[in-house]
C-alpha cells in the first residue's frame, strides 16, 4: 500500500502564483523517495501541503489509503507526518530542549520536559546526531540547527518523514551519518521523502525518485534504472554539463593578507582564533569547513562588518583593519553573505536591493539617481540572466536561484579586486549552480582574487586553486586541491590532523 498518495494537487498562492499544476505523487511505504526539480519547481510547496501548513487549491491526499484533510501541521503530525524544512522551523530564542518539548506536546500533552530530555538523549544515542539540549537555538550553527530539526521529527515518531534539502549544510561525514540514520529508519518501516538538488545523493540514498518541473511531475523512476545524467535531463529538459571546464590558475600578486586575525561572535566568544591567510590575484582560495567553525565571523571581519580584536588585514599593501564595510567595498572588496536574509531586503524592490552595496555608484552628493540605479539593475538582470518581471518587483517574489543571482551579480558588476563569497550555491538547482560557479571562475580568470567559503566539498574541490580547512576558528591545513582527498578533508574538518 502506498504511504502517500497525492493526487491532482493544484496550488495557487494568494498573489496568483501557480506553484503546482496537477501534481500526483505516490510514495510506497518504507521507501526512500527522492524529489527532484529546479528552483521553483514546487517541491517545497508540495511538502508544505503534505504537512498541512498550507491547503491545496485542489486535489486529494491519502495516507496509507485513507483520505486526509489536515487542518494544520499539528494535525499532520498526529497522522505521523514529520517534516524537516529547508528553512528551519525552530523558535530561535528558545533552547533546543524547549523546542523539542514544544514539538512533542501535540502528540502527548502530558509529557514533561524531563521526559523529553530522556527521549532526546536516547534518540541521539541511537542516531549519532548530537545536539546540545540546553543551548538557545539561535546561538547554534546552522548545521546543528538542522540536526535539531531531524531529531525533532524523529522524536515525533513520524511514519512519513519529509526532508527538504537536509544535506545542504552538512559535512560529508555528517551526510554519511544522516544517510545511515535514514537507512536505519527505513529498516524500521519509516517512509522517507527526500528533497535535494544533488544528483549524487539521489543516486546514493533513494529507491525511487520523482522529478518535477514548473509545478508538474515529469515522471517517477526507479533510481537504480537511471543515470545522473538522465535525471538532470528530466529535470531541466536539456543537456547539462556535469563538470566544469577549468583552466589552470595563473596567480599574480598577493592582494589580500590576513595576519593572526582574532574575531569574536555576538556572544563575545572568540570564534576566529588567529587566522593567517594570503590571497593572490587570479586565484580561488576555498575555505572548507563545517558550518559554525568561524567562517561567518571570518568573512564578516574581512568584509569590515565585524571588527577583529586582534590581527591585521592588509589589502593591496594597505592596512584596512580599522575600516568599515562601506569603505572596504569602495576600495574593491566585495562580500556575498551566506544568507539571503542578510544580503537581501525581501520587502524591497530589486533595484533597491541592487544598490544596497553599490550606493557610491548611484549617488551624487547624497542623492540617489534612480535612473542610474535602474540601469545598473537592468545590467545585473541581463548579465546574470535573472528571471524577473521588472526591476521594480519586490525581490521576495523571485525564486531563490534568481535572488542568489542578484546577490552575486550586484557585487560582480562592481568589478571587485577581492571577491569574498559564502555558500554561493546553497539550495540552488543545477542550472543555477552551474551558472554561479562559472561566474566565479570567470572572475578568477580575469585576474580577480576569490575567497570561497563553502560547506559543499564538491564545490570547494571543483572551484578552488588552493584550499584551506577551518576548524574551530583555526586553519588546519592549506594546500592545492590535489593534496586533499574527500576523506582527508572530512577528517580535517572534524578537527583531526591528517
Amino acid at each position, binding site marked *: 500500500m502506498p504511504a502517500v498518495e497525492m493526487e491532482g494537487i493544484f496550488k495557487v498562492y494568494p498573489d496568483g502564483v501557480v506553484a503546482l499544476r496537477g501534481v500526483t505523487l505516490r510514495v510506497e511505504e518504507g521507501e526512500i523517495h527522492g524529489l527532484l526539480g529546479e528552483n521553483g519547481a514546487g517541491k517545497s510547496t508540495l511538502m508544505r501541503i503534505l504537512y498541512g501548513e498550507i491547503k491545496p487549491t485542489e486535489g486529494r491526499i491519502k495516507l496509507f489509503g485513507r483520505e486526509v484533510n489536515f487542518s494544520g501541521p499539528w494535525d499532520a503530525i498526529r497522522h505521523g507526518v514529520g517534516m524537516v524544512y529547508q528553512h528551519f522551523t525552530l523558535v530561535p530564542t528558545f533552547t533546543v530542549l524547549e523546542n523539542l518539548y514544544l514539538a512533542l506536546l501535540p502528540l502527548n500533552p502530558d509529557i514533561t520536559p524531563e521526559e523529553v530530555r530522556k527521549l532526546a538523549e536516547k534518540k541521539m544515542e541511537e542516531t549519532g546526531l548530537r545536539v546540545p539540549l540546553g543551548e538557545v537555538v539561535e546561538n547554534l550553527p546552522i548545521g546543528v540547527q538542522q540536526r535539531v530539526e531531524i531529531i525533532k521529527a524523529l522524536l515525533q515518531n513520524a511514519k512519513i518523514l519529509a526532508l527538504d534539502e537536509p544535506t545542504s549544510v552538512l559535512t560529508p561525514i555528517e551526510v554519511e551519518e544522516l544517510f545511515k540514520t535514514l537507512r536505519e529508519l527505513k529498516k524500521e518501516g519509516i517512509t522517507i521523502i527526500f528533497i535535494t538538488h544533488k544528483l549524487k545523493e539521489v543516486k546514493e540514498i533513494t529507491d525511487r525518485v520523482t522529478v518535477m518541473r514548473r509545478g508538474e511531475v515529469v515522471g517517477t523512476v526507479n533510481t537504480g534504472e537511471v543515470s545522473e545524467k538522465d535525471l538532470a535531463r528530466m529535470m531541466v529538459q536539456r543537456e547539462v554539463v556535469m563538470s566544469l571546464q577549468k583552466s589552470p590558475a595563473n596567480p599574480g600578486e598577493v592582494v589580500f593578507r590576513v595576519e593572526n586575525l582574532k574575531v569574536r561572535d555576538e556572544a563575545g566568544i572568540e570564534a576566529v582564533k588567529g587566522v593567517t591567510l594570503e590571497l593572490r590575484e587570479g586565484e580561488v582560495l576555498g575555505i572548507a569547513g563545517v558550518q559554525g567553525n568561524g567562517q561567518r565571523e571570518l568573512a564578516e571581519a574581512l*568584509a*569590515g*562588518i565585524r571588527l577583529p580584536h586582534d590581527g591585521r588585514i592588509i589589502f593591496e599593501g594597505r592596512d584596512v583593519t580599522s575600516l*568599515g*564595510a*562601506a*569603505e*572596504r*567595498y569602495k576600495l574593491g572588496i566585495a*562580500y556575498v*553573505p551566506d544568507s539571503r*536574509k*542578510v*544580503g*537581501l*531586503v*525581501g*520587502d*524591497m524592490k530589486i533595484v*533597491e536591493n541592487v*544598490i*544596497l*552595496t553599490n*550606493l557610491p555608484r548611484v*549617488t551624487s552628493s*547624497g*542623492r*540617489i539617481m*534612480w535612473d542610474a540605479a535602474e540601469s545598473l539593475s537592468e545590467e545585473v538582470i541581463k548579465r546574470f540572466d535573472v528571471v524577473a518581471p521588472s526591476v*521594480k518587483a519586490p525581490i521576495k517574489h523571485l525564486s531563490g536561484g534568481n535572488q542568489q543571482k542578484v546577490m552575486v551579480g550586484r557585487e560582480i558588476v562592481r568589478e571587485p579586486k577581492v571577491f569574498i563569497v559564502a555558500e554561493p550555491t546553497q539550495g540552488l538547482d543545477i542550472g543555477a549552480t552551474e551558472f554561479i560557479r562559472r561566474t566565479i571562475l570567470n572572475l578568477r580568470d580575469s585576474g580577480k582574487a576569490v575567497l570561497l567559503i563553502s560547506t559543499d566539498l564538491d564545490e570547494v574541490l571543483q572551484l578552488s586553486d588552493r584550499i584551506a580547512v577551518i576548524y574551530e576558528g583555526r586553519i588546519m591545513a592549506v594546500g592545492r586541491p590535489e593534496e586533499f582527498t574527500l576523506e582527508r578533508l572530512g577528517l580535517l574538518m572534524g578537527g583531526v590532523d591528517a
Partner: protein
Amino acid sequence: MLSVDRESILEVLMSLIIAFAVGTVVLVVLGYDPIRVYSILFKYGYGNTDYLLKKSTPLLLTGLAFSVPAIAGVFNIGGESQLYVGAITALLVAHYTGSAIPAVIIGTAAGALLGLTIAALRVYRNINEVITAIMLNWTFFYFIAYLVSAKYANPKVPHESVPVPPGARIGGIFFIAVLTALTYYYVLHFTEIGYKMRVSGVSPQSARYAGFSPEKMVLTSMLLGGAAAGLGGALLVLGATYTIDTTLSAIYGIGFTGIGIGLLGRNNPVGIIFSSLFMSGLIIGGQWVELKTGAPPELADTLIGVIVIALAVPYAYRLLMKKVGQRGSAA
C-alpha cells in the same frame, strides 16, 4: 521612482467607504440621523479652509514625527513632548528676539534634540523608546506648565504665557508643513540617508552588511521626527495660538493624534498630508455636530473611533472583494 501606488489608494478609498458605512450603522443605533450628522460634519469640517489648514498643520507634523521613525523601525510615541518643547522654545525665542525665523529654527532644533535623546537612550542604553517617550511626555507637560505659570507668564493675561510679539507672527503655516512633508518624502525616497533609514527599518542586519549602521539611522530618524514635531509646536504658537495657556490646552494631545494620522497616511509623508486634512476635518466638524444637533461632543469621538478602526483592516476588504468577485464569477 515617484510611483503612486494605485492599489493602496484604492484600498484607502475602499476603507473610507466602509468606515463611513459602519459609522452610519453606529449613528442609527445610537439614535442619530446619519445624513444630518454627516452633512454637518462635512459642511463644517471641510468648509472653512483657513481653519482646516491651520488645524492640520501641527497634526501633519506630528504625523511625520511618528512615521519617519516608524520607517526606520522606531515607535515614536513622544511626538507629544517633542511638540511641547518646540512650542515653548519657539515662543520664548520669539518673545526675546521679536522675530520668527530664529524661533522656528530653535523650536525645530529643540524637538529634534528631544527626539535624539529618546533615540540615544535606545541605542546606547538599550531603553525602549516607548517608556522613555511616555515618561518624557508627562515630564515635559508639567515642566512646561511650571514655566508658563511661574516663569514666563504674561503680566497682562496671567493665565497665559508671554505672547508671541506681532512682528514674529506668521501665516501660511500649512504650506510650511506641506513643504516639510514633501521634503521628507524626497529624503526618504531620493536620498542615500532616506534609503538607509528604510533598509534599517526592515532589516537592520542587511544595513550592517551593507556597511552602514542601523543605530545611526535610528538616531537620524528620531532627529527628523523630533524636528517635525518641534516645528509643529513652533508653527502652532507662531501661526495660530501666539501663546500657551497655563493649562496647556493649546498643545496637549496633538502628538497622540499624530500617531493615528501617520498610520492612516500609511507612513507616507504625502499620504500624511491627506490624512491630516481628513482627520482635522473630522475633529473640526465634530464640534459643529454638537452645536447643530445637540449631541454630546463625544459622539464625534465615537465616530472618529469607528472610522479609524475601519481603516485598520484593508486586508479584510480585499478578502471581501475577492469573495464577492468569486461569487460573481461562479454565478
